[in-house]
């Protein structure tokens, strides 16, 4: 009986730590007061409305969207062939390639950010936007390779041979036979990459420059200057956006099969 009590207690604590911050942020976002505080002082939607009026939020939101969409697309363009080669051919340095490709998952973002800043941005004088794009593409690549690999491994390779024997070239076989059968895996990889990029902080922190900031970095900057609840309102909006995307993906794709 006591062990049962302990497990309920543990469960309650886990939920408290997972969902608690989210509840606090939403509550703070709906505050009627002038500063970021919990419990909220009164109830109002004015800070939610304010989010859409802050110009830097609009600009950084656009940048983050751009990086998340095009960074993920670039990672897929690079990652799908890598995943295909790794799953279909025994490559001479297969293990090494796999390790290098998954390095950004293992190496802390701070180090990746510092390294890119010191050895890419400073010596080559790469623009902030391009540096962010390269960094985000590199960060998403391992996720793209992994998720697409998982769906390729579930696809029998003999259907490709069947297509070839019916007269199809190898390239045409990839587009006509392989791609249609892994498209839900690719969509899953896209969503995962999008969310990863959009929420990315440490690398973007190093690479963001004057006037060019991703949304999470802009929120930190904003908070250092203005301590009003609009940051909480923005955070709550972003959380709902992420939750809706993942919910829809799970609903229509069985997203959790791939991640």
């Amino acid at each position, binding site marked *: 009986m006591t062990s049962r009590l302990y497990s309920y207690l543990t469960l309650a604590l886990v939920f408290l730590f997972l969902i608690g911050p989210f509840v606090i942020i939403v509550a703070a976002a709906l505050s009627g007061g002038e500063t970021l505080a919990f419990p909220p002082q009164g109830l109002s939607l004015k800070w939610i409305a304010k989010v859409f009026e802050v110009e830097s939020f609009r600009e950084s939101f656009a940048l983050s969207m751009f990086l998340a969409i095009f960074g993920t697309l670039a990672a897929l363009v690079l990652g799908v062939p890598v995943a295909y080669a790794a799953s279909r051919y025994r490559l001479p340095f297969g293990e090494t390639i796999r390790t290098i490709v998954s390095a950004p998952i293992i190496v802390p973002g701070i180090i990746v950010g510092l390294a890119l800043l010191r050895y890419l941005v400073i010596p080559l004088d790469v623009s902030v936007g391009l540096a962010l794009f390269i960094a985000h593409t590199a960060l998403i690549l391992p996720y793209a390779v992994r998720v697409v690999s998982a769906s390729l491994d579930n696809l*029998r390779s*003999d*259907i490709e*041979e*069947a*297509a*070839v*024997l*019916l*007269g*199809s*070239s190898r390239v*045409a076989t990839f587009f006509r*036979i392989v791609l*249609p*059968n892994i498209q839900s895996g690719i969509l899953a990889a896209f969503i995962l990459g999008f969310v990863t990029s959009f929420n990315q902080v440490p690398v973007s922190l190093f690479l963001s420059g004057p006037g060019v900031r991703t949304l999470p970095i802009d929120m930190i900057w904003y908070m250092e200057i203005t301590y009003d609840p609009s940051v909480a309102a923005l955070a709550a909006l972003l959380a709902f956006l992420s939750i809706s995307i993942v919910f829809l993906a799970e609903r229509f794709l069985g997203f959790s099969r791939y991640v």
Partner: protein
Amino acid sequence: MSDAAYLNLSDLTLAYGKTIAVERLDLPIRKGELIALLGPSGCGKTTTMRAITGLLKPASGTITLDGKDITRLPANKREVGLVFQSYALFPHLSVFENVAFGLRLKKLPSAQIVKKVEDGLAMVGLGQFQSRKPAELSGGQQQRVALARSLVMQPKVLLLDEPLSNLDARLRLEMRTELQRVQRESGVTMVFVTHDQNEALALADRIVVMKDGRIEQLGTPEEVYNSPVSRFVADFVGFENIFPVKDGQLQTQNGPTELSIPLSAQTTGLAWRPSMVRLGEGRFEGEVLGVAFAGGTREYLLKTPLGPIKAEMDATAPAFAPGSRLAFDLPTERAAVLDRM
């Protein structure tokens, strides 16, 4: 022989990396023949089939088809069809589109494609399933789609990988009849791979028995079944009593035994089916170790001076009890004469 060969494998060596799977194989196949490649797993039969398709490049040797050297021709240009053991249907396409796949690549006019697909599906009895997805069909139906998909391309050779092994007993008989009918109607040259001797005997015009990447015997089902030429083939088709022969004498556990008839110098062994052993009379004597009732027959295991012998007798004859001694004979004139032990 090789002048008449429609599909000719000549001095073909096939390897995976450094492992040689098939060594210096010569195999001429005539137009319209139904050939079985028969052998245990690892004998090189599937490898040989893959080489004919072009999915595997030979290490050396040549393959000619219809008078043309196709050894270096890529798989998608060979006009060779393959029905995979797993069927390998395209899961995202309907039955119709699966069958139409190759025809669309040929850029045929769409009316012609529709006609050919409908004819192909009708031929395998699946006309009403055109719009289904492969996952909605049974295994037997999927195989028919795979067969139709290959046939509509009018391949010069149709290869089938273990065509009956994934089907249950009833479907197996049905599919066997179906394959023979399709072959008769289309006249296509067929080569199928199997590890099941009954399948090969029932279906094939000629059987290629393979072992360790080499051909053990090539012959009609009757030849292979009645006159195996090697110990391996004899054992494979049910000659369970096999004895070596040296200088015209049967070599047994108790020394050589004189045979009544002359044998050629190449003869290295003689083999008898259990049903060929004559019980109750003869030159030899043995003791019954065991007896088992097998419906139409009784199966005996004898302890004899020649070594253990398996014999079979009509169940209507009186049974010999275990432990009893009896005379028996191995009729030399009925034995399979083996060149290789």
